[in-house]
């Protein structure tokens, strides 16, 4: 058969991928913009830019992403998640530079950095290093351990907050300005503040949070319960989102910044499709999304990897964690495979990343995929907290085909039932019985995870990760069943 699919040809296609130019910069090339300086960077595979013109362009792109959304208001407190990696390092520097601009151009929000210590995954980044960098940038920093995500929802997780000397000095000035009129002994007040809120630099170490039993449990889930690398990575990604949002809530932040570049988002878009999470693309690529009741923003979404790299290089910025930290092992996964695929394709066809990114930005969750009882909390996945895409969606669907395949592979012929073709609805009931309960609790992607995790029989810590909706009786009952089986009760 011809290698072209017939149905691809339903009408005319004018979509063709343009080959990359593979231009090479030489010493004598001038900047296209200013026509004065030597060009140092090739923008979008075609335009030669000097470092200064590039920086103007790059910073402008970042500022306009925030500006045009009108979502970040004057005086907003924003929690900026920092992984130590290249994009989030870049994000912090962009924010710092934005705050240092003269008043008319100054960024008008108050950033606070959050670092999740992942030493449990053998991450080499030391907290002290992270602190050093954040201190230089003069941001307040909070940090916590990844395994804290296993703490029961009803309890507080352990978060440490440090404020740099520089920050404190600034803070004192600030207080000075406003308090001297109000308080006779403000110096006393300052002393109190200093002693209560400041953790000295030498206090900062991985041990400061304490090694908890939770770290063993998380390690167990990651190395024993989850057998394949794809599930581990997907699980970790969900955990990071969960923990960041939880920290934000606990620290009193309504807004969170994540430093994902457009390139990273393109990889996420395609990975999400491959993971069966196509319906959630919008939840991970739009500028503003909502996770666990927290507003998550992606201010770097319009930048590309090569631009971020060049910005970091040209400004001599130190990146604490050069390697993209993702997982505890190097086995291939859906995401690593997708990353390699996108990178290779990008080499050959320059428009790959921009096209995938643009496509992803136009997609939302389909109506058919949702459950009929829209608006109820039962529609929400108990793990990732996003809307479930495991509604009926008409009787012919990939989900139903999987359910049927499982039935037919596990049971004897079932001839008697299936033979009766006129009463087809009966057969659907047959397909849709108990075992598909996992799809009543979780979204499709999380159901893949949970089946592997054997969530019904795994440790109570995994249960803590699940969102229980007290107001939604049906959902509660389902969970209750599992919990009762193991002699536990919902509070």
């Amino acid at each position, binding site marked *: *058969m011809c*290698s*072209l699919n*017939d*149905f*691809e*040809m*339903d*009408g*005319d*296609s*004018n*979509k*063709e*991928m343009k080959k990359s130019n593979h231009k090479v910069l030489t010493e004598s090339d001038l900047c296209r913009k200013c026509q004065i300086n030597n060009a140092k960077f090739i923008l979008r595979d075609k335009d030669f830019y000097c470092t200064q013109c590039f920086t103007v362009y790059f910073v402008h792109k970042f500022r306009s992403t925030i500006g045009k959304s009108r979502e970040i208001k004057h005086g907003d407190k924003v929690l900026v998640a920092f992984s130590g990696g290249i994009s989030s390092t870049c994000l912090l520097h962009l924010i710092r530079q934005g705050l240092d601009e003269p008043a008319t151009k100054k960024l008008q929000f108050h950033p606070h950095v959050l670092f999740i210590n992942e030493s449990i995954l053998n991450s080499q980044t030391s907290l002290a290093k992270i602190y050093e960098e954040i201190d230089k940038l003069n941001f307040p920093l909070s940090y916590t351990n990844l395994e804290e995500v296993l703490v029961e929802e009803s309890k507080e997780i352990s978060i440490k907050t440090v404020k740099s000397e520089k920050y404190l000095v600034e803070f004192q000035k600030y207080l000075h300005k406003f308090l001297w009129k109000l308080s006779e002994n403000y110096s006393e007040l300052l002393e109190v503040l200093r002693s209560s809120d400041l953790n000295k630099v030498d206090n900062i170490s991985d041990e400061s949070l304490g090694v908890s039993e939770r770290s063993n449990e998380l390690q167990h889930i990651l190395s024993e319960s989850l057998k*394949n*690398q*794809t599930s581990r990575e997907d699980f970790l990604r969900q955990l990071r989102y969960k923990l960041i949002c939880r920290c934000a809530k606990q620290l009193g932040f309504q807004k969170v910044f994540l430093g994902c570049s457009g390139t990273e988002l393109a990889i996420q878009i*395609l990975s999400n*499709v*491959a*993971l*069966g999470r*196509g319906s959630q693309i*919008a939840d991970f690529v739009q500028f503003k999304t909502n996770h666990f009741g927290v507003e998550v923003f992606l201010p770097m979404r319009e930048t590309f990897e090569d631009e971020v790299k060049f910005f970091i290089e040209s400004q001599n910025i130190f990146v604490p964690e050069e390697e993209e930290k993702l997982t505890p092992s190097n086995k*291939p996964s*859906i995401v690593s*495979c997708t990353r390699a*695929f996108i990178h290779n394709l990008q080499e050959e066809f320059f428009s*790959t990343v921009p*096209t995938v990114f*643009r*496509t992803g930005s*136009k997609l*939302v*969750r*389909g109506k058919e995929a949702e459950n009929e009882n829209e608006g109820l909390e039962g529609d929400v996945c108990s793990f990732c907290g996003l809307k479930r*895409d495991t509604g009926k*969606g*008409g*009787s*012919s*669907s*990939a989900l*139903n*085909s*999987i359910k*049927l*395949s499982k039935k*037919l*592979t*596990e*049971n004897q*012929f079932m001839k008697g039932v*299936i033979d009766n*073709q006129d009463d*087809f609805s009966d057969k659907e009931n047959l397909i849709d019985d108990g075992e598909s309960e996992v799809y009543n609790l979780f979204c*499709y*992607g999380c159901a*893949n995870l949970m089946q592997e995790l054997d969530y019904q029989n795994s440790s109570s810590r995994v249960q803590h990760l699940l969102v229980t909706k007290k107001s939604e009786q049906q959902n509660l009952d389902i969970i209750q069943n599992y919990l009762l089986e193991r002699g536990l009760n919902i509070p």
Partner: protein
Amino acid sequence: MPFLCSTNCGKNAVLKRPKTGGALCKECFFWAFEEEIHCTIKSASLFSKGDYVAIAASGGKDSTVLAYIMKLLNDRYNYGLKLVLLSIDEGITGYRDDSLETVKRNEVQYGIPLKILSYDELYGWTMDRIVEKIGRKNNCTFCGVFRRQALDRGAELLKVDKIVTGHNADDIAETVIMNILRGDIARLQRCTSIQTSSEDKISRCKPFKYTYEKEIVMYAYFKKLDYFTTECIYSPNAYRGHARAYLKDLERIRPSAIIDVIHSGESLAIRDGIHLPAQTTCSRCGHVSSQEICKACVLLEGLNNGIPKLGIGKSSKVKEKLKVSKEKNGNCANCSCSKKEENGISSRLKDIEELLNIEVDINGSKSCRNINKVTRRIEDLSF
């Protein structure tokens, strides 16, 4: 050590199902495979009793298994369908000869009548003659475009109610990925639907939508079905090749990936307010097209007028020709762009006008703006 069949039938398993990971014996596999397709047909209401259904038959594994299954399920469950095998003869020496022999044997083996239609009959051109004209580089464009319409035209001739094609889950997952990579959101939305829905057109459906390619191969192997293994002998589309390789990698890492991609495709929608090109019909031949004139008609025009490359690639040749001569000669007459105007621009425009069957304002045509407009139009018409 032999595995037992996971249905507890007591027999030894002969294979592991890629879709579920369960191990099955031969009989249980046959049963599961057939039942799943039956369920797909039933739950999507693909047919009505008495329908006259054309099975697109290429002699390859997908369409051979499809023909076998359609016959089997039609008999087993009394669908009440009248079946016909529809084959297209592109006229590729050494390619179709053998595969058509296979289809002819299938006609006898399954007792389904066969109708063969040739490109020569439908378009006046065989693929071999097209290759002579344009070389091997772009002929998959031709064979793909022509094949699609060939089926539709054939189906119209036979006056069937439905066409079934052997597209399997891998094909569909691959198309989902392709459309994301190319940013073709209109097709992305269409490509996961199990049948085409256009009132005045014969609908096409894909009973293998949820069937893994590997299982089709296994089924054909264990049933000892007679099919012809071949790839299109002309160079495949490089870009699709990348998508295919990627999907295979995904499947190796996580076998459910194929069905997961299809689920993703099914649960996606396009954000409100995003403009989609309306799908209309070709003003010449009446087939589905997003342009005024469909691809097949443009390609045919090119072939018949000795400009066979028209409609392939970005028409850069056509565009370059226009541009180069534009700069060589005198000033642009009508606009203030100070660009040069080419000799004989009117006649060239007239050619294009005839070729593309579009109206070009000859009076205003001596301006660059107009040339650009026409060039853009040509680009729109090509890939």
